[in-house]
């Protein structure tokens, strides 16, 4: 699909959207929204599938910048970014190596924790551990150290797929199986009750800045797949209902995590603020959702900025780094 903007001397941006993952539909929506916003400010935009014609399309389109709007492994695990680097065309978002670190939640947690950011206690267990050892014994050992309630999640996955909050021991095996459906490595993490925040970080060339935090209050109490993508299923508060001091701390954590993980241009850092005001890092997203109900666009608009202008500035920032 090709759409052309009108303004002269504007960048030609190739958006990659779709892919083969369970987040394909979200990626297509994100790509379309980014394209619409960029067209509004006069950019020339091409939307492409990352398929067997990826490299030939890059040669044909000759974009100034590529914007990979690919959620899930295909866009976030670094592989595609390595390929894009080979083409010499600058692209928006994290480098391949930084994406790899952030994509694996267990590794991201270690890196940010080493830099003084608090993250809930957890243990990371590959599926093979359970095959080789006594599964029941391993789970008992884990829960003797990390108390219920727990969160079990795939180390590498998105859109809350495969995540289960576990309140008692007899729910744990099923939660592990559900997490291993999505990834061969699962994280068992202490559940932190509190205010769930998504803090978008953008760097338009003058250093990373935290946008207003978006507070997430799902109607059902759980921010799952449906709550993320269906209008009306979640109430968002922008900025979050926090004191200025807590809001500042959360923003600091987000920028710190973004920098520590070596991310660039844009990211979304998910945190929880507990009742004492402690900010807990949960994960970093190198390709935040950019659909009509996604969190980064909400933060941009809450700040009073124009989506098209911010997206175009991000593309320009990538272009300058070529």
């Amino acid at each position, binding site marked *: 699909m090709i759409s052309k903007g009108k303004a002269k001397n504007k960048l030609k941006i190739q958006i990659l959207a*779709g892919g*083969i*993952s*369970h*987040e*394909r*539909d*979200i990626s*297509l929506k994100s790509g379309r929204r980014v394209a619409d916003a960029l067209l509004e400010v006069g950019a020339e935009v091409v939307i492409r*599938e990352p*398929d067997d014609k990826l490299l030939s399309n890059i040669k044909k389109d000759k974009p100034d910048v590529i914007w990979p709007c690919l959620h899930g492994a295909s866009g976030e695990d670094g592989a595609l970014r390595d390929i894009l680097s080979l083409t010499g065309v600058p692209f928006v978002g994290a480098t391949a190596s930084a994406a790899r670190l952030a994509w694996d939640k267990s590794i991201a947690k270690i890196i940010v924790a080493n830099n003084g950011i608090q993250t809930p206690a957890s243990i990371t267990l590959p*599926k093979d551990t*359970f*095959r080789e050892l*006594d*599964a*029941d014994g391993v789970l008992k050992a884990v829960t003797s150290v990390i108390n219920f309630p727990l969160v079990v999640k795939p180390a590498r996955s998105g*859109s809350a*797929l*495969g995540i289960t909050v576990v309140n008692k021991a007899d729910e744990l*095996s099923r939660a*592990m*199986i*559900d997490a*291993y*459906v*999505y990834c061969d490595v699962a994280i068992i993490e202490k559940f932190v009750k509190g205010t769930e925040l998504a803090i978008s970080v953008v760097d338009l060339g003058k250093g990373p800045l*935290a*946008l*207003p*935090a978006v*507070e997430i209050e799902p*109607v059902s109490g759980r921010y799952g*797949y*449906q709550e993320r*993508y*269906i*209008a*009306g*299923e*979640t*109430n*968002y*508060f*922008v*900025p*979050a*209902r*926090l*004191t*200025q001091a807590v*809001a*500042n701390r959360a*923003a*600091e954590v987000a920028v710190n995590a973004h920098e520590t993980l070596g991310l660039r241009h844009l990211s979304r850092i998910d945190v929880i603020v507990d009742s004492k005001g402690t900010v807990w890092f949960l994960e970093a997203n190198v390709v935040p959702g950019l659909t*009509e*109900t996604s969190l980064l666009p*909400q933060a941009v608009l*809450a*700040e009073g900025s124009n989506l098209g202008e911010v997206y175009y500035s991000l593309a320009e920032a990538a272009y300058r780094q070529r």
Partner: protein
Amino acid sequence: MPENKTPRSNNFDGWLDAYADRAHTLSVSEVRALFAVVSRPEVVSLAGGMPYVQALPKELLAQAYEGMMAKKGNLAIQYGGGQGDADLREQLRDIMAMEGIHASPDDVVVTTGSQHALDLVAGLFLDKGDVVLAEGPSYVGAIGIFRHYEAHIEHVYTDDNGISPEALQEAIDNMKAQGRRIKFLYLVPNFANPSGVTLAKDRRPKIIEICQREHILILEDNPYGLLYFDKPVPDALRSMDDNVIYLGSFSKILAPGFRVGYVLAPPALRDKIVLAQESALLCPSMFSQMMISEYLEVADWRKQVDTFRGVYRERKDAALSAVREYLPNVKTTTPDGGFYLWLTLPKGIDSKAMLPVAVKELVAYTPGTAFFGDGTGHDYLRVCYSFPTPENIKVGIKRLATVINHQTELLETFSK
């Protein structure tokens, strides 16, 4: 550092408090999102029930189009009657006669696919909390409609011979004991979607007898009846009882793009269906109806249906053979026609949770949960063999076997 301005709440739907209660019955799931992946050519889709329209020579349609435009061009692009085109309704009589139904064209209403007929009938009968009895499993599109009208779907035990009369009586007694109002029994009696099973000939009069005695309407949905592999299906339930509401469709024996189906109903109900249809969309597409009418007139459509039978028989054989080769421990139904195999998975495997892994392995199917209105069905999945080539069916089922074996291994690990 962002200044903490006054928080504003947003749920992206300013009309959330204004919707009718039934609007909240509409929901999407991650399963639906996964089907976006199916369009990628790398993925073998055993999911959607798409007919293999490539087996329909397009010159037959071109010929029908030319004929229609020459004879009835202005009528075809005009509004029509709410009951549907009279010529087509005459022709439908012959089609229904192939399954033992002797009907008056006057009792037929042409609809926008049989799906719309189903919606119209459901809208006429169902109040919130009413009971619809259905096979277990049942057609996902019907479940969606019944849910939308806030009905309670009570599944009735169904085996390789279709719905069980004893289980039907038991379900009726159970619902009556609970003081619930049963509105109708919904059935896909031939090569059912999703199970592929056919209601046995000897069970048909028993089902009718029970429903007559209990004053329960039967809604007989028969899109696949003509797509048998070797021998024709038993006569339709409607042939045994004029009070049965019978739904037919051209989606599987011609092409779904026309969106033409029909309903045969007792006169009083027929009138209400016509009024409801006129109220909803004035009339079904005259263009589609007249195209089909001309196609039935000039093409050897029976031969074309026979071609479809051959295509689907070959694909069914490929699917069954692949299941037996790669999934020897998985139970499957053995259909005598139609599009589907219904697989029973090893205990503990959740077909809905497993779907993302399958997609990662480049194969898609429909989880069993889609075919139950009560949240069950995790142990099953539907394989649709109608669209992929026999070679791709084999590849897809081999990939599926890899995924199922992986899941089995996981379950064994955590059940030690």
